[in-house]
């Protein structure tokens, strides 16, 4: 399904997704309205100087560069409660699962790189054994993408990692900014249904629109980006250079903050901890929180032995995971070239430079 949406109509479409078509009192009672699945829509908004996804409030604007945090948090929130436990002294504990709420979320303005993060996360959480916390959230999420007319960040490099500023991978709907209107294209069935909900707000694209779309896309792809010189050769080269002294050299400034991974649309590592609310009688929750391989203790054994001692080993893990291990397992790079880790690293560690250096290194 390909349509044209006037920019002024974007809030109308959001409203159509959020509100029940009939609405309570307009031919539909409250119970019906509640059971009919509606969307909670999230659009990028500028808050305290940073772009974040926020519940749509009728003033959606899709002129953001890219959000500070990737949209991964919708399916993989920073904090997920698995279950709660209670135990009276001398009795067996009682466990209560906490199931994510059945609520559909539509995330608007997802950039193509972040869209491409989605199938990568899906792989992790469904490969081998399904993580139901992830999948039960994921199945309720639709990603309404926004193609990049020009790379929003000077550190974008999606083209180097098999993506493109106009990729629709992982998205349900792809929108392209044509100046005063959007070219809207449904990618999945969900996407079609969502567009259908917009009904008359959408118009059919003219041939000129199609032409403009093509030009816009072509221009976007042609726009210069940062470049990984040999992405295809990377897995083998990284493997070969595992022991290279370059790693420590390049990572010497790393402070191990993990910003690079927390913000990354594809980093999925987590920690599980028990949070105790009361000691007697015992009550608390088992909670999953984000974690990442850049934290020094991530792999440290209880004995104090740490297989990834030093920032070099940890940078290598991050880069290798993205450009070698994931590739070896799933045939694709885990990095989607969003450039967040490059732009946000407080000490200027730059994955593009790192990959280039290591792949050019003969050792």
């Amino acid at each position, binding site marked *: 399904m390909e349509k044209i949406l006037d920019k002024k109509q974007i809030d109308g479409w959001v409203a159509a997704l959020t509100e029940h078509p009939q609405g309570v009192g307009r031919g539909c009672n409250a119970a019906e309205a509640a059971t009919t699945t509606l969307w909670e829509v999230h659009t990028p908004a500028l808050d305290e100087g940073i772009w974040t996804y926020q519940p749509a409030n009728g003033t959606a604007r899709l002129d953001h560069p890219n959000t500070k945090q990737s949209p991964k948090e919708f399916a993989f929130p920073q904090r997920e409660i698995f279950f709660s436990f209670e135990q009276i002294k001398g009795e067996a*504990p009682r466990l209560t699962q906490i199931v994510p709420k059945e609520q559909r979320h539509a995330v608007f303005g997802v950039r193509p790189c972040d869209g491409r993060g989605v199938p990568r996360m899906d792989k992790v959480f469904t490969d081998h054994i399904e993580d139901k*916390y992830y999948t039960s959230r994921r199945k309720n999420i639709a990603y309404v993408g926004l193609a990049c007319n020009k790379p929003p960040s000077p550190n974008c490099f999606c083209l180097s990692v098999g993506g493109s500023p106009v990729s629709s991978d992982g998205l349900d709907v792809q929108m392209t900014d044509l100046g005063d209107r959007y070219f809207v294209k449904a990618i999945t069935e969900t996407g079609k249904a969502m567009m259908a909900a917009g009904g008359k707000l959408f118009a059919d694209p003219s041939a000129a629109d199609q032409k403009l779309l093509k030009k816009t896309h072509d221009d976007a792809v042609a726009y210069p980006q940062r470049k990984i010189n040999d992405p295809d050769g990377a897995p083998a080269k990284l493997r070969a250079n*595992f022991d290279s002294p370059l790693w420590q050299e390049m990572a010497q400034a790393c402070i191990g903050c993990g910003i690079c991974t927390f913000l990354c649309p594809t980093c*999925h590592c987590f920690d599980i901890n028990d949070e105790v609310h009361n000691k007697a009688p015992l009550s608390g929750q088992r909670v999953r929180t984000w974690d990442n391989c850049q934290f020094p203790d991530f792999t440290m054994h209880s004995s104090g032995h740490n297989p990834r001692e030093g920032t070099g080993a940890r940078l290598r893990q991050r880069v290798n995971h993205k450009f070698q291990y994931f590739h070896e397992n799933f045939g694709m790079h885990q990095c989607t070239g969003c450039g967040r880790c490059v732009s946000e690293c407080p000490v200027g560690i730059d994955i593009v430079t790192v990959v280039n250096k290591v792949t050019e290194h003969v050792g």
Partner: protein
Amino acid sequence: MSDNIYLPQLARVAYIKEEVVGERSIKTFRVEAVDGKLFDHECGQCAMLSIFGRGESMISIASSPLIKEYKQFSIMRVGKVSSAFHELEVGDVIGIRGPYGNNFPVDDWRGKNLVFIGGGCGLAPIWPVITTAVAQRNDFKNITVFYGGRSPRDIMYRTELEKLRGSADVHLSVDKAEEGWDAFCGFVPANVMDKAPNPGNAIAITCGPPIMIKFVIQNLREIGFKDEQIYTTIENKMKCGLGKCGRCNVGKDYVCVKGPVYSWAELKDLPAEY
């Protein structure tokens, strides 16, 4: 939500034994299902044990798969969760989920000589193989067990090891000589070198501290064992046990899924991040 892979089953502690006391104390626990039955497992697999309010730890199942009534674990006190285990009393209820990881290919080893080499707490992961082999004694040729601790007090499964003697060659050792100890004094790899088990039609299974494994493997290869004949387990830090949390990652493998059992031939191929 069915199949919640993070939700443990409840199990009751039926038996506790103090194996080793002191700074690195070890206790053995047997647990039984509170309701229904616990999962079946294979030799070498592990389980995530929980103490609610303290957390989870990955622990090797130390009992033979042949035993269905209970599962046995031997846990060294090293930190938060393991300390909580050491405070348990019989009758207390814990959480358990698993089994996780791959297993020793015991079926492929029938008709072979088995050489077990363990150190410290590393006897636990290979104990199910030893006890299974002894239980099915006729399926296997010679069984040799090397095991060493820092001192006589650090030898775990002492009585069980003594009981093995009828069915297996048992070579115990301690790191430093001490009064009343008349078996081998020195590190386990040295004991192995000393007794030099025959590599012919043999499989060597070793488990223990990383530094011990390193030298055991060196020595085994010197004696003539091929990479494919040597098996070990690697224990990277784990949180989920399901190949998702990312921390046991070595190269393309998540050890909790692809491991913990590796032949040296396979392991050599992975980056040395364990």
